[in-house]
């Protein structure tokens, strides 16, 4: 009898399993189910609140979390956006203010209209979290000084006149918008008076700033009972492996939103994304590093396709110039001549990268836009090979002993590249570099660090001679050059004033000099970078040209490869995906859907 019961139970389980396997997606209706992953949310967390300010919050950008506008990431103009909560915007010619008109028919998923008051409360919440446009420090560049609700659908934000910045508009347009009727209670009644006081000087201002920033943890932990979204979808439910979002019928562009439901799958590592892609489960997946063999498998799945576009990120070999012999520019130049970047890229990132043409601090594509073809060509390409490298090493005083390069005092020289063990492309790239250097008589080795947090801590503490470092983080020019001439190289912005701290102090691990000579002229690259925040037009171009030359001649880093934004799509269920090189590729697929691009097949 017991045996019979056991057999019956097993049969029951088998039947249930079979039943579930057949009905997996049965609940999706007409518009269909769109399946994707959110690269910004690895490791879905059911305990996290539906809160866009929370790093793990279950608010998915472009789906149930909205910004005023979606940044196009234009190569030279950071102030271009697609409409979001804002239907249109008017920027004053000197960027001193921005007047935003909200989408006239947009409603929250609970039926209440989206108003300028919602935007104002959202700005208040952004003040508690800090950030460029909402800095409380009166000397901070590009901060808002006045927020004025003009009418129900119009709001004007004015920039503080004493320290204007070109980052202001972008800072405003990237404001996360949440409903006032849910979140408003987090701001005390005298909040706006406090903001006004905080943007002055003195003890009262200090107290006001503290009172506002003290609200940050409360905002971060706030957990609305249910999702109230102004985006195309609202969160219906989730488990640790998946999140289900359903269409928000009140969304202003709901008629053009094709899918009825969106399923966001959890991932903790690239292998899981590869597995989903190989199984043809994902309608789209954002940039993922993929080895060549996996790429072949993914491509072989029916319906799968690849879209490629510009990615404003590059990878480089960065030097700690406070260590010998890397303080000598000729050593850095010699190494640059020796490294075959095409070879490195082929090994490290064949699908997701293109070899850097040279070191300019910028990705090759915006470099061409900013500098022009002639100026770009005038930069040293560092392709001289062994002959040029020997020349540079000799200038640096290095000696060749038994076929190996040694330091000026005859002591052996070993170049050690540190990389985090978990970054397979960096590791492969570093190994390719050391192999090339060893062949050319430079003793070189790769040392791995257990994980990324440890790598960054040790890098910042100046423990490494040479490490991998992300550069060219555009599109805003200031963002690009602050990776070379920012905190990590000694320049710090405190209370609106720029200062240079000595090597090895306060995160200055690059240890470069405060001034360098570019074409016979002494320049302070940190100061020039800082200026990029406040100048526009020709002046901006001139500074960029100078910085590109500085980076090219002084080589605080050797750029190895530019990342390519390689994304995956599957056209079995939906069509209308952005094409190669579309600026939409830098935005989430939620934005593609809400703009009405994605169509049901």
């Amino acid at each position: 009898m017991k045996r019979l019961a056991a057999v019956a139970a097993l049969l029951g389980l088998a039947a249930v399993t079979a039943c579930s396997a057949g009905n997996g997606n049965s609940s999706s209706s007409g518009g269909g189910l769109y399946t994707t992953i959110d690269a910004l949310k690895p490791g879905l967390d059911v305990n996290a609140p539906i809160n866009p300010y929370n790093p793990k919050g279950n608010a998915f950008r472009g789906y149930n979390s909205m910004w005023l506008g979606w940044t196009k990431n234009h190569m030279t103009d950071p102030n271009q956006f697609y409409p979001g909560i804002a239907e249109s915007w008017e920027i004053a010619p000197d960027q001193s203010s921005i007047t935003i008109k909200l989408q006239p028919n947009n409603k929250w998923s609970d039926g209440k209209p989206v108003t300028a008051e919602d935007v104002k409360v959202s700005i208040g919440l952004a003040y508690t979290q800090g950030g460029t446009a909402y800095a409380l420090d009166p000397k901070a560049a590009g901060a808002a000084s006045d927020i004025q609700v003009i009418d129900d659908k119009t709001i004007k934000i004015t920039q503080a006149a004493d320290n204007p910045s070109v980052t202001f508009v972008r800072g405003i347009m990237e404001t996360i918008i949440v409903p006032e009727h849910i979140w408003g209670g987090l701001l005390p009644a005298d909040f706006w008076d406090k903001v006004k006081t905080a943007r002055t000087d003195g003890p009262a201002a200090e107290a006001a700033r503290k009172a506002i920033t003290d609200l940050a943890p409360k905002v971060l932990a706030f957990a609305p009972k249910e999702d109230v979204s102004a985006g195309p979808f609202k969160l219906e439910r989730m488990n640790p492996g998946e999140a289900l979002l359903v269409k928000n019928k009140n969304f202003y562009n709901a008629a053009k939103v094709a899918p009825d439901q969106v399923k966001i799958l959890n991932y903790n590592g690239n292998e899981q994304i590869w597995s989903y892609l190989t199984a043809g489960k994902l309608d789209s997946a954002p940039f993922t590093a993929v080895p060549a063999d996996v790429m072949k498998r993914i491509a072989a799945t029916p319906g799968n396709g690849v879209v490629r576009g510009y990615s404003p990120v590059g990878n480089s070999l960065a030097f700690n110039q406070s260590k010998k012999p890397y303080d000598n520019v000729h050593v850095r130049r010699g190494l640059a001549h020796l490294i075959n970047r095409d070879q490195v890229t082929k090994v490290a990132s064949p699908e997701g990268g293109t070899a850097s043409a040279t070191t300019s601090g910028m990705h090759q594509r915006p470099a061409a836009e900013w500098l022009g073809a002639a100026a770009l060509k005038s930069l040293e390409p560092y392709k001289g090979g062994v002959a040029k490298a020997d020349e540079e090493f000799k200038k640096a005083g290095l000696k060749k002993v038994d076929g190996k390069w040694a330091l000026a005092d005859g002591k052996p020289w070993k170049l050690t590249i540190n990389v985090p063990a978990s970054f397979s492309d960096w590791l492969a790239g570093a190994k390719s570099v050391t192999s090339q250097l060893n062949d050319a008589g430079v003793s070189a080795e790769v040392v791995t660090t257990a994980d990324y947090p440890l790598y960054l801590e040790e890098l910042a503490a100046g423990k490494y001679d040479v490490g991998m470092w992300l550069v060219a983080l555009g599109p805003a020019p200031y963002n690009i050059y602050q990776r070379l001439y920012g905190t990590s190289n000694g320049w710090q912005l405190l209370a609106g004033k720029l200062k240079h701290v000595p090597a090895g102090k306060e995160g200055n691990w690059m240890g470069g000099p405060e001034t360098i000579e570019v074409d016979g002229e002494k320049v302070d690259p940190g100061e020039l970078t800082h200026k990029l925040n406040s100048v526009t037009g020709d002046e901006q171009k001139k500074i960029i040209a100078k910085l590109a030359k500085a980076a090219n001649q002084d080589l605080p880093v050797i750029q190895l490869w530019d990342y390519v934004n390689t994304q995956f799509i599957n056209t079995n269920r939906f069509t209308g995906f952005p094409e190669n090189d579309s600026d939409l590729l830098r935005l989430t697929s939620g934005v593609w859907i809400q703009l009405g691009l994605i169509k049901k097949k």
Partner: protein
Amino acid sequence: MTVIARRLAGHLARGLVMVLVVTSISFVIIRNIPGDPIAARYEKLIEQGMSPEQAERATAVLYGFMPKGNLWQQYLDYMSGLFRLDLGESLMTPGAQVTDVLFEATKWTVLPVLVGTLLSFLIGIMMGVYAAIKRSGRLGDILAVSGSLLHGIPQYVLALLLGALFTTLIPILPSGGTADIMFEPGFNLGYIGSLIEHAALPVLTYALASYGGWILAMKSSVVTVLGDDFILAAELRGMKRSIVFRYIARNAILPLFTILALSLGLLFGGAIFIERIFNYPGLGLMLIDSITNRDFALMGGAFLLITIAIIVANIVADMLYTVIDPRVRSGEEAGR
């Protein structure tokens, strides 16, 4: 007070001291793990396409959730919280209580590991008895070899093989998650079926990985018991074969119960590789994430849970032995 109750009280007191000692040691170790989790998060966000300002904004507030004060102060805060059953807040999910995060992850580990372990235990001991009795036959050899083979394959290799087989070559099982979100959670056929479907691969891996150990241990135990005088006496007295078989099984299984109880304690540690490979969001996966993100509070909570589970399992194993083996009980009573 009975012998068992006194014994239990002694175990609990020692267990409590052990928990405090282990918690203190793990606290010091955890707080001294090098690495800057917030800088790592900042760099990750930038790599994913966030502008430096956005990334700064998204990470700056996290500093408020980092432990404050010197190590002693942090230790006192942590221990006083512990006595109030407050393990603090997660760093990577600000606002989420560590106890809630642990509870959520624990349920996804305990059920599959428990099912897998019990399944392998039941099949393993049955096959072990059979392999011992038929040890000179071909089937006995096959069973013993299968046990040695499966015992020798590392769990993660088995997981990779099963994953490749059932999710890529013959894609009949899902490669990750706990259940299809399209099913409304609750006591309905679709949802339960989806749970089973998603747990199938982790359970199968746990079961196959530990089956080898059980069959070998049981076979060896049965072979030892077979040579005992009381079995010979029973056979000479002409007892039924089924009764003799029961004698053998009951005596041979005793040491295995201890191992079972201990392995049930270890299950709280999660099977890190298995959960990682199958993207199954249990304690193992949570532990990896918390270490990668230097989520000190979560790491501390996870280690505490594992410590308590192992200590409790040890106590249970010891008490179980007292209950199921009369020789231990009578020995203790005689010693009084």
